[in-house]
């Protein structure tokens, strides 16, 4: 059996803009750290035992796909919430991020219920927020930047002041293009509009997820990969945006 198992939720529905790059990144880095990692694709119609997995991942999808996913997962949302509360590492990108909230309001005012794991909602607007994005984040008091690309028509608004964003927008739009916040970071869950994909050129985030995965198994994370290409790509993207 593999050392680690990542659940890739509904890859056939939720997989836009190179999202699978995030999974490839986690799997390869784990491999380079000396652990094998199995990716289990979770198809529609499965009953998911969240606690069997070391990390769950879901990518972006169009409106139709999002609705299908909510219908799938709505019966399991309390189990999902419980596992997230207990520290299950998770990465939710774009459309997957949106459906963790209370509801999603389409441009004609229709409300599509979400999984209600967190107190936020998303409203769709006509013009899409598209472009490169850089945000400032911090981990254990250490500041770092995250770079990527966003492409979303939904604007996400937090309704609970205790919710913490993944970071502050330096350049780009973020959650709603107004409040300067991007994404959501709750315990070991990261949810974000940033694809690009996110993890390969943001190795700090990739290693954060890997470290938590290892710690939960009682393993010690030592780090130490040669990230010169990762860092080059990160800096190049940043320079491309910030000039």
């Amino acid at each position: 059996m593999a050392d680690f198992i990542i659940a890739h939720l509904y890859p056939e529905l939720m997989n836009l803009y190179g999202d699978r790059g995030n999974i490839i990144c986690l799997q390869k880095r784990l491999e380079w750290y000396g652990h094998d990692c199995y990716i289990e694709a979770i198809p529609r119609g499965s009953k998911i035992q969240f606690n069997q997995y070391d990390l769950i991942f879901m990518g972006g999808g169009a409106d139709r796909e999002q609705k299908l996913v909510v219908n799938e997962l709505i019966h399991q949302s309390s189990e999902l919430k419980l596992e997230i509360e207990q520290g299950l590492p998770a990465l939710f990108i774009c459309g997957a991020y949106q459906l963790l909230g209370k509801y999603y309001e389409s441009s004609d005012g229709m409300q599509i219920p979400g999984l209600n794991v967190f107190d936020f909602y998303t409203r769709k607007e006509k013009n899409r927020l598209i472009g490169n994005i850089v945000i400032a984040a911090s981990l254990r008091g250490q500041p770092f930047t995250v770079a990527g690309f966003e492409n979303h028509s939904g604007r996400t608004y937090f309704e609970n002041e205790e919710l913490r964003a993944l970071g502050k927008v330096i350049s780009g739009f973020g959650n709603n293009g107004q409040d300067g916040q991007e994404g959501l970071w709750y315990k070991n869950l990261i949810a974000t509009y940033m694809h690009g994909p996110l993890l390969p050129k943001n190795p700090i985030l990739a290693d954060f997820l890997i470290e938590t995965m290892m710690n939960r198994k009682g393993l010690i994370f030592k780090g130490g990969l040669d990230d010169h290409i990762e860092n080059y790509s990160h800096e190049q993207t940043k320079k491309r945006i910030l000039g």
Partner: protein
Amino acid sequence: MKKIALIIAIMAGKFASCLSRILGTGGTSIPGKIALRLYPHILSDLAANISEEIFIVTGTNGKTTTTNMLAEILKEKGYKFVHNSAGANMITGITTAFIKETDWTGKRKIDYALLETDEANVPLLLQQLHPRVVLITNFFSDQLDRYGELNNTINLIKDAVRDTDIELVLNADDPLVTHFKNETGLHCWYYGFEATNYDKLQGEASREGRYCVFCGQELLYQRFHYAQLGKFCCSECGNQNPESNFTAHSLILTPKIEMKINDIEIRSPYQGFYNAYNILAAVSLAKLVGIEDEIIQKAIANYEPRAGRMEQFEIDKRKVTLILVKNPTGLNQALATINTEPTPKAIFFALNDNVADGRDISWIWDADIEQITALDSNIEAIVCSGLRSGDIALRFKYADAQVDRIYIEDELQSGINKALSVAADATYILSTYTALFVCRDILLKLQQESITSADLIDQKQKSSESQG
């Protein structure tokens, strides 16, 4: 009055055309833009001079090569036609093409118009032109960045052709294309491939059109030609490939494409399955026009690859191939072709993210780069270049390419020099759109220099022989 406005618009367009030829910029869209501003009906007025038919070619991949091949066939037959050039496939570019072919009075008769256009541009174009045929090559998601989601684009085209007497020519192997008949009721012609030796039983994980458009059931495939193109059926509602009117069989891809389309034998200097589809599409349209087999065969056989479409160079005895890449499917096809090369090779990849490339470069992660980094694939160097050299380098790294063979050279010239400096017999220059012509110029210059220096050596040898 109307007539005067038309003439003024044509004159302005032609003048702008001359001017841009002199200045060397903006020749493909600005003349049309100016003329449209002066006389908004110019396109439909000029289109009235087409005595035979108008053909529109759209779809994600292959429209340029398909229209170019068809143009070659029409030329071989001796027809006069309007043909917009690659990259000039919006209304302004198409108007420019019409202005170029007309005379000052806007009355010259032309046999055909052969227009390639972006998917999202079809509705607008159909408001102004009345084509006999719209040919749809395939649908992939490279326009996502620019137009929102693929389904929207498909629906826009459907709405635009519904309730017209347009005939559709459709790729019978693409489930995202075949359903146009059911939902528009138009007369449809189909082209497709029989089983080939290059088919796969398994599809790519990230392919489009996985689900039946009618009922949402996952489609079952007997075989895949490439991406979602193949022999499919739906167990729920019976949706399946329609019967083809133009069927390609006996396909050979290497070293060059050979196949039969119905009973016409076709040979082409092109490579790659996607180009076999382009040939099939062009030949299907040519048959609908009623062109003789011999003329089609001759035109296809003589039609050499264009800039960046497997264009060959020879530099210091090396085979160098320039390939335009712009989306996962195209890149997968390019890599599959590279994989058939048995000798040691070097790869150069220029990744830009300007608007014309698509600002979102995440598509490189949807491509199956892993197919080329398998241990025995003989890759001596991977040189990563362009504005997003880091991203493509990372993609190769996470596809398990050997890290010590990945080089980052942002600058195109030094990157190409690097790729040509490693010991390899074949070099592949992959590039996105906005770096393509710069790369091409560099290669042409290097090729010229290597010919000149070879000549010099030749001459020296000859003169020393004659002296000795």
